[in-house]
Every structure is written in structure tokens, then in C-alpha cells.
């Protein structure tokens, strides 16, 4: 099957008057439909740049990004690949109600049809936010805000979800439950997801595949498939398995090796 997303030899540098800072160097990636991939790497290695390029907010300086084999997302409108992007912070607008916040994407793409709003109401109900739809975002807890942000992303029916450390602003306890919660939602809907994180445990509890990036300029250093016999419903149980320990140690070795040799 054709991968939903592939990167071929993608490089990117930031430029200013003092010189250029290479951020990504010859990245090759393939992501298959329906998979949940995590990208980990040392902080500041260019992970967010990678997402911006995939989302089409930045154009790669070298190489190309293929969406279902096409070189541009809008190349053929029928097969246009929709990308949902969840940023580090939820950025729910305080001057809008929760409902007005989650329909933002539909509003921007002029697709506020009855079908779509029904879908939003269903999502609000599914994620336990229906009773809060007319509240201000400040009245929600951290976990609820993150779920509202997920609904805002899902509202436009994305085929590929980009998650840029969406749990890093949460406290540890909320983070465990919300990340498992959101990963389950994504799995149930069969969406493809690309999660960026600096938290190794998060990467190996949530993802089927972990991609390790090297230090800046980032290149793909190692890819690892993750599988648990017991499934993934319970993040705490997953963290107790021997497989989890093994994965964690392997990943740790790859990452620390990077630091000593670089």
C-alpha cells in the first residue's frame, strides 16, 4: 500500500545575517496509513521544523514531501490529504465559547454544514465536553482543554494528525491519562498520527513505531517498532511490562550514544 506520507531527502536550514543554521539534513521517512508514529530526539533538534514542513507551513529547501504519492497536498482536489495539527499549547481563544473554539477550523474552511456541526456535537458528547460547550475555555481543566483542542483538530476530518508535544503543558498525572485517552481516540477513529515528544516513556507507550532523530541538524538515526501483548488500553499496565523496559533501555542507549559521540 502506498504510504500516506513520505519524505525524500528533506533538508531545511534557518537563515539570518549571522549565517545559516541547518535544522534538518536529508530526512527520509515513510508513514503508512493508520499507524501511530512517535518522533523523539534531543531538544532543539528540529522536530517542530519537521512538522511545519509536513504540514506545508514551511517549504523544504531540498528534497520533497509526498502525500499519498503526490508531491503537493492540493495537487488533485479529490484525493487532497487533510492534515490536522495539534500545537504544544491548546490556544483556545478566551473570547470564544468552547463550541465556538472547536468549530474554528470549519469556519475557516467555510464548511459549517449541518452534517459537520452534528459531528462536532457528537465529538463533544463522546469526549465529555457537551455540558461545557457554552462555557469559556478558562472554566475547563487542563485535560478538558486538550480534548477540546483535539476536537477542534478532528472537526475538519483530517487524514493525518500531527501532534507537536501536545501534552507537555500538562502536569504529570493529567498527562498520563490525557495522552492515553487521546491516543485511544485516535486509534479508534483509525487516523494516522505523527507525535513529536521528548518524553521517551510517552513515545513507547503510545506509538507503534518510534523514530529517533539525531542532534541538529536532525537526521533519522534509528527506527523501532513497538508492540505489546497486552494491548494499550491501560497506560500504567503497559509501563509495567518487561517489553516496555526493554524498549526504554534500547531507546535510551540510542539517544545517549548520540550525546557522547557528538
Amino acid at each position, binding site marked *: 500500500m502506498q504510504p500516506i506520507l513520505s519524505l525524500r531527502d528533506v533538508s531545511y536550514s534557518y537563515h539570518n545575517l549571522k549565517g545559516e543554521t541547518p535544522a534538518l539534513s536529508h530526512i527520509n521517512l515513510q508513514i503508512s496509513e493508520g499507524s501511530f508514529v512517535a518522533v523523539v530526539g534531543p531538544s532543539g533538534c528540529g522536530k517542530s521544523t519537521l512538522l511545519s514542513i509536513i504540514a506545508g507551513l514551511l517549504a523544504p529547501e531540498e528534497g520533497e514531501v509526498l502525500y499519498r504519492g503526490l508531491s503537493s497536498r492540493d495537487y488533485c482536489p479529490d484525493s487532497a490529504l487533510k492534515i490536522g495539527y495539534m500545537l504544544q499549547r491548546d490556544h483556545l481563544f*478566551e*473570547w470564544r465559547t468552547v463550541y465556538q473554539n472547536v468549530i474554528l477550523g470549519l469556519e475557516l474552511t467555510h464548511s459549517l454544514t449541518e452534517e459537520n456541526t452534528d459531528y462536532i456535537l457528537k465529538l463533544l458528547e463522546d469526549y465529555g465536553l457537551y455540558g461545557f460547550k457554552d462555557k469559556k475555555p478558562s472554566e475547563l481543566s487542563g485535560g478538558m482543554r486538550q480534548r477540546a483542542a483535539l476536537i477542534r483538530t478532528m472537526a475538519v476530518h483530517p487524514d493525518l494528525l500531527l501532534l507537536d508535544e501536545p501534552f507537555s503543558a500538562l502536569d504529570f498525572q493529567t498527562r498520563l491519562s490525557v495522552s492515553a485517552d487521546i491516543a485511544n481516540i485516535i486509534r479508534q477513529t483509525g487516523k494516522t498520527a505523527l507525535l513529536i515528544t521528548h518524553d521517551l516513556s510517552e513515545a513507547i507507550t503510545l506509538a507503534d513505531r518510534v523514530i529517533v532523530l539525531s542532534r541538529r541538524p536532525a537526521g533519522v538515526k534509528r527506527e523501532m517498532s513497538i508492540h505489546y501483548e497486552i494491548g494499550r488500553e491501560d497506560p500504567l499496565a503497559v509501563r509495567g511490562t518487561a517489553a516496555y523496559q526493554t524498549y526504554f533501555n534500547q531507546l535510551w542507549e540510542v539517544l545517549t550514544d548520540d550525546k557522547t559521540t557528538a
Partner: protein
Amino acid sequence: MTRQPHKTPPPVSAQQENFLRAHHRHHHRITLGRFFLLLLFLGLWETAAALGWIDSFFFSSPSGILQYLGQMIVDHSFFAHTGVTLFETIASFFLVTVLSLLAATLLWYQNSLSEILEPYLVVLNALPKSALAPLLIVWLGTGTNTIIVAGLSVAIFGSIISLYTGFCQVDPEMCKLIYTLGGSRKDALTKVILPSSVPLILSSMKVNIGLSLVGVIIGEFLAARRGLGYLIIYGSQVFQLNMVITSIIILCAIAMVFYKLIQSAEHYYKKKY
């Protein structure tokens, strides 16, 4: 000054009651102090004028001012002059608000335009606008137009700069969110920049109303036959100090009313969001 909606009040502890009482007492004391200061000032002024410590021909007196104000109301000149000044101030304030919003939006939209215009804006903002007034008279004649433009010229450049600076300080991640959801730069403007800048716009309006009034009075000094600024200049020329000081006091009242109006708009906004 709590504005919570009245639900069934939770039981209040003795300490909380004490705190509330102390808080109210403090507020009463402040209000009382303010009135006392005003009364003291007026009383001293009146006594000094009555006992001849100061010459009431030059310094007027509270009773003289009241008398003159009554006379102005009876012969309707109060309404004519105050009305003219009010109209000119509101017109120039309205123009400043609308034009500076438009200009700041345009500058935000066109980065290179703002870079090109920056030094000019800085110079125009720093220029003492009263220096422009004679020029305005030559160009626009004496009358309402000149005065409204004078009010406009005092406030607009500062307002553009502060709005534009505020627009640029909005979290770029919020605009990025708009782009990730498929929005354009125009969407970023209407969905993020403008709504998130409402508090800034309100606070710049507070400054603008004061500056518009300053510009209008300067304009009336130089180019008017009506209005409070004209009364002040005319009164000083014919040594009618009652007229001058009464006009100044009416100006104080106008400034205060405008300020309070915008402040209550601010309170309304804060309560709503």
C-alpha cells in the same frame, strides 16, 4: 465592589466578615477624604476671595463661577459652546479611533509598508502638533473642520503606533493555529489579532479621548468663534476670568465623563470575558 452574581451566599466566617468590614471602612475613608479635599479647596478659595486675600477679579471665586454658570445656562450660551466642543471632540475621537485601527491593520498586513513608514511615524508622533495649527488654518480656514483635524492630528500617530505594536505582540503561535486549520493571513487578522486586541483598543481609546480634547481646545484657541476653547481665549482677552475658569471647569467635567464612559466599556468587556 464585588460583582458576583447573587447565589445563595456561603456561610461567612468571622474573620472574613472582619476583613470585609475593614475593606469597606477603608473605601469609605478614601471617598470621604476626596470630598473633604475638594470642600477644603473650595472653602479656602471662597473665603480668600471674600476676605480680599486674593483679588477675585483675577482669581474668580466658587460663588462667582456658579453665578456665571447659571447665567450661561439662562442665556443658552452654555449649551451652544459646550455642544460645539463636545461635537468636535467626539468627531475627532471617532475619526482617530477608526483611522488608527485601519492604519494599524494595514501596517500589520503589509510588513514592508510598516518598515518603510516607521521613521515617518516616529517623527510625526514626536512633532508638537500645535505647530501644525497655523498651517491647518491656512489650508482649511477657520471653523469646525480645522478644529476636528487639529484634534485628529494630536492623537492619531501615537494611537497608530501603540495599536500596531500591540498587534505585533500577539502570540505568533495563535496565528500559526489559524494557518494549520487552513486559514489565511486575513483570517489571522479577523479571528486572532483584532479580537485579542480589544483590551488594547479600549485602553488606547482612553488616551485618544484626552488627546482629542487637547487638540480641539488648541484648535478653538486659534480658529473658532464658538466653543469652550474660544471662551477661554476670549475671556482672558477681555479680563472676564469668571468666563475662563468656568469654561475650564466644564472641560474638566467633559474629560471625566468621557473617561468614565470608556472605563465602563472596559469593565463591561472584562465582566463578559
